[in-house]
């Protein structure tokens, strides 16, 4: 008897989301219970992110929310990858909240979006993580399999 949290929990999250999301967060698509797309905007006047919209891709496993979702920024012509010392240029995000250790099942799609929003809002550094180029060139792993070293908790 496998644990089937995901379907019900996501169904409920979706019905909540359809009743409204916080400002700057929009649902793009949630056609199934495996992959959702959302757009986020930074709401203050941070010049790094002014007038831009960023697209997030959530992928859920069967054991969501016990296991974290896989969350990445995806690039499109009108959707760049936000510049941030914890966001690689291929869209992979280094955030402990999304890691195996930092994740908590009380988090949700909405709360993850809000965390990413505030992670951008609070950033002043116009830079990529150290070693971005090599990482992006060499990485074949899924985000959840990467052992990030959360070296800097101030960002």
């Amino acid at each position, binding site marked *: 008897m496998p*644990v089937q949290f995901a379907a019900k929990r996501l169904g409920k999250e979706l019905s909540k989301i359809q009743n409204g999301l916080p400002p700057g967060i929009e649902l793009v698509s949630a056609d199934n219970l495996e992959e959702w797309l959302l757009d986020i905007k930074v709401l203050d006047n941070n010049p790094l992110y002014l007038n831009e919209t960023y697209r997030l891709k959530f992928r859920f496993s069967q054991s969501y929310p*016990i296991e974290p979702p896989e969350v990445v920024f995806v690039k499109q012509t009108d959707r760049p990858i936000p510049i941030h010392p914890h966001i690689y240029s291929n869209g992979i995000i280094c955030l402990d909240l999304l890691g195996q250790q930092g994740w908590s*099942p009380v988090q949700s799609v909405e709360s993850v979006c809000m965390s990413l929003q505030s992670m951008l809002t609070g950033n002043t550094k116009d830079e990529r993580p150290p070693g971005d180029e090599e990482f992006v060139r060499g990485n074949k792993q899924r985000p959840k399999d990467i052992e990030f070293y959360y070296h800097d908790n101030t960002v």
Partner: protein
Amino acid sequence: MSGQSSLALKEEGNRHFQRGDYVAAEALYTKAILADPINPLLYTNRAMARLKMSRWDSVIEDCEECLRLSSLAPSTTTTTSSSTSSSGGCPYMAGKKPRAPGSKNFKALYYLSQAHLPLKNYDQAVDYALQAHKICAETHDKSLAAVTSQVLKCKKARWEHREKLRRREEQELEGEVVELLRKEMEEALKTSSSAASNDDEEEEERKETEKMYREKIDRIIAVFDQVREKDQRRRPNPPDWAIDGISFQVMVDPVMTKTGKSYERASIEEHLRRSETDPLTRTPLTIKDLVPNIDLKNACEEFLNENGWAADW
């Protein structure tokens, strides 16, 4: 007892079951039972296959036989089993007998609930699901989440069934009351026509009487309309205090962490198996630290009795 042992037959049955060939699995479990008719676990295996085949009545027979046999089992604590299931009846006392921890009998109860639900035996479905839940909670079984969902599913089905009955009864009552008033009106109109002498006066009186009755009938219908409207309206999201922050379902068995926050037992145990931390504070937390929140449990139960739709919103 010729050929294969019951264990070998069962294992072959399991292989077929896993492949999705439930008919072959069921036949093999039957052979296994013939080879060893007093092993209760073989009956739950066959019940599992029969569930997949939607053979509800024979699921129930197998599960009841399993419960009967395991209550007779000498290996466990000496519980003198009194009533065994007489055929045809509904002996769900069988499930209430104490049994050894780690016993797999929650499966028989769980399957019984699953079989009674499509048969529309809602009370039994809820009751067996709760009994299965109790055993799973005591043994920290990994099936607790599935059994918890079953409890909610049964409660919702029972509530919907009761609501349907109630609505039908109210509709009938409305029809009866309106019909009675109509008859009374007709009677009154008849008598007034014979009593009055003057034609104009008679007409006047008839109109008065008719108007009075029409108003009464309208008011009765309006009252029933109000009830119907209320039925439609009471579908807000369930209150936050009743909702588990992990599964987002109404809680069946809330347990409290050291921080004072309550979660559904199945959800938090599932989380703790992966990471022994409090979901809110990330401080160390183990299954042993969880404390039942009885008042909240009762409140959730009461809420669900009134708002069964919320069991699976």
